[in-house]
């Protein structure tokens, strides 16, 4: 997936200012930045939900799966009814087989008959992701997937996502949690005020902090990151 000089404006405000980046198969790209940085706007454009005012986005190797921040599923239907519905809507030849596959992948086979509204937020998020995977996407976009989850649920979520990336799916996710981004993102894309400040692995961000904000270099990653943003004028 590749984005070139993407610009998005809302009225007179520029939400994205010429953001460019690319991601290869199996990459895990964490999009991080403060509130209003443009993370959700960028993911929406990558997902094709909104159009950029300038620049272009391309995905050379197939479908782009999108998992919105709020679980996009029907809470009054059961787990399997949700999966079956979206498998049918995706036009799968054997929607029941796809549903079984996703039940296996999410580990929710035992709870297949339960109404989604009765499941925990973590399990709802797993179904949300599973629905995003039904299109068998080469690229999976996740908008703050761990919001509202407890530590155990987060851990299971990231195990699940990491396994997808290990199987060759490009995973691009946004998060507020810097530790989480460092731990699960193979690459970090730092946005601030719609501008891409950094694109590289966490280790390189550490080095950039050391260069530009040496006073925070030995602090924890989140503190160092905030100092880096401050040093860059954000």
């Amino acid at each position, binding site marked *: 997936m590749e984005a070139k000089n993407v610009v998005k404006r809302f009225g007179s405000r520029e939400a994205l200012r010429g953001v460019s980046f690319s991601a290869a198969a199996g990459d895990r790209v964490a999009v991080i930045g403060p509130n209003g940085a443009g993370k959700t706007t960028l993911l929406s454009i990558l*997902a*094709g*939900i909104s159009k950029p005012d300038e620049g272009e986005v391309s995905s050379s190797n197939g479908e782009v799966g*999108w998992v*919105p921040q*709020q*679980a*996009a*599923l*029907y*809470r*009054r*239907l059961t787990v399997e*009814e949700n999966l079956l*519905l*979206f498998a*049918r*809507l*995706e*036009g799968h030849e054997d929607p029941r087989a796809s549903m079984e596959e996703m039940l296996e992948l999410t580990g929710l086979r035992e709870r297949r008959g339960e*109404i989604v509204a009765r499941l925990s937020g973590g399990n709802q998020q797993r179904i949300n992701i599973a*629905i995003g995977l039904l299109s068998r996407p080469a690229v999976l976009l996740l908008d703050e997937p761990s919001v509202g989850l407890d530590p155990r649920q987060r851990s299971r979520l990231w195990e699940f996502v990491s396994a997808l990336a290990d199987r060759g799916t490009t995973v691009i996710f946004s998060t507020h949690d810097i530790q989480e981004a460092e731990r699960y993102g193979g690459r970090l894309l730092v946005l601030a005020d719609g501008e891409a400040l950094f694109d590289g692995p966490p280790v390189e961000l550490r080095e950039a902090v050391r260069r530009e904000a040496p006073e925070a270099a030995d602090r924890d990653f989140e503190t160092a990151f905030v100092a880096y943003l401050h040093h860059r004028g954000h």
Partner: protein
Amino acid sequence: MRGVRWLLLKDLQILRRSPLQAVLLVAYPILIAVLVGFAISRGPEDPRVAFLNEVPPNTRINVGGGELPKANVKERICKRVECVFVDDRAEAEDKVESGDVLAALILPANLVNKINSLSTLTPGVPEVEVLVNEENAVKAELVDDRITSLLAQANLTIARRIGAEGGRYLGLLVNGGQFSVLGETVQILGLRTTARILETVTPALPPDLRPALKEVTEFAAQARDNLDVAKPLIDRLAQPIEVDKVVVGGASPPLEIFAIAVAATLTLAFVVVLLVAGSLALEREENAFLRLTRGLVSPGGLLGEKVLLGIAVGLVVTLLMLLGMQFFVPLELSRIGLWLIAILFSGAALGAAGAALGAAAREVRAVSLLAFMVTLPIAFLSLVPSGAVNPTAFDAIRYLTALFPFKPALQAIAAALDEAGPGIGGPLLHLALLAVAYALIARFALRRFAAV
């Protein structure tokens, strides 16, 4: 189209999964519809009126020295209202104040004397007393209308009696006959006999007297002829204008059929508008709208699915209701094909309107409120007949109700139920145009549907 099918199945699953919502969605409109239907079809019951007659027994109305036959005013009034006979004024007041009766009618003791004085040189003003409890404006208006109507009926009855008696005197004057005064019978010669006698005796009179007698004979003949004309005129005085009703347009079905059409249309409107608007807004609340319209189904396809859902559920509910109404009023089942066409067109237009509401309001609670706020007043305004309000207001109502599918749906369903109603073609065309217009509005509103 494949996606529409699965979404339709999904919506029915959700509906089935929410029995309370399904019951409310179906039962509440039916309850409203049945109540409205009964209210319209039964018409007003005879109002209860307390009746106190203080006129002494055996008092008769005398006009011009003769007694009129009993007018039976009490019996006539009590045919038109449910009379609750009371013994005194206090009891009448109690019943009015407690709301047990709509009003109290008191005939004072001097009523007949005052009526009798009408033919004297010092006529009085006969009055009856009416006690009312105007606890609200509607009741006050109703009481005024009822009392005015009752008194008009009483006045008409008395006037007819007086007219008839006057006619009888004229008949005596013209044709002659017997007349009773103070217990004695008086023979009246009459103008006709007078003229005949004069004509008979004229030849026997001296020639110089004949011209004068001829003038008298001619006067008697003229008076007889003119008084012959006067009698029907007196008869007409009691009710000078009669109504000759001619229907020049606006064919309408019988009242009970119209009431069923109102009930069915109300049910259909609430079910379809609420269901379509609510289920569309639910797609947004479940965050599913963006996921669906990312390629799984087009926004137009999603709108079409919601309208289909409304039509399907509305069709079932309305048909069941109409078939249930068979227990009260027999309907022509042979016209069921027209019922289906009317319901399908109505459902499509109402569904499109519901989709526009859902797309505009976006949140389920706001949608439900908006659907009620729009549908209820429009339904009531659609029932306002021409002439019931001033022409400017009626024009405004007519244009407003033409913009919403309720009125054409009512016309289409009424036409489908009974052949005596207006033609079905016009309302169907109206509904088709509204369906297209609202679908376009809904499609336009969907552009900002997912925005926060």
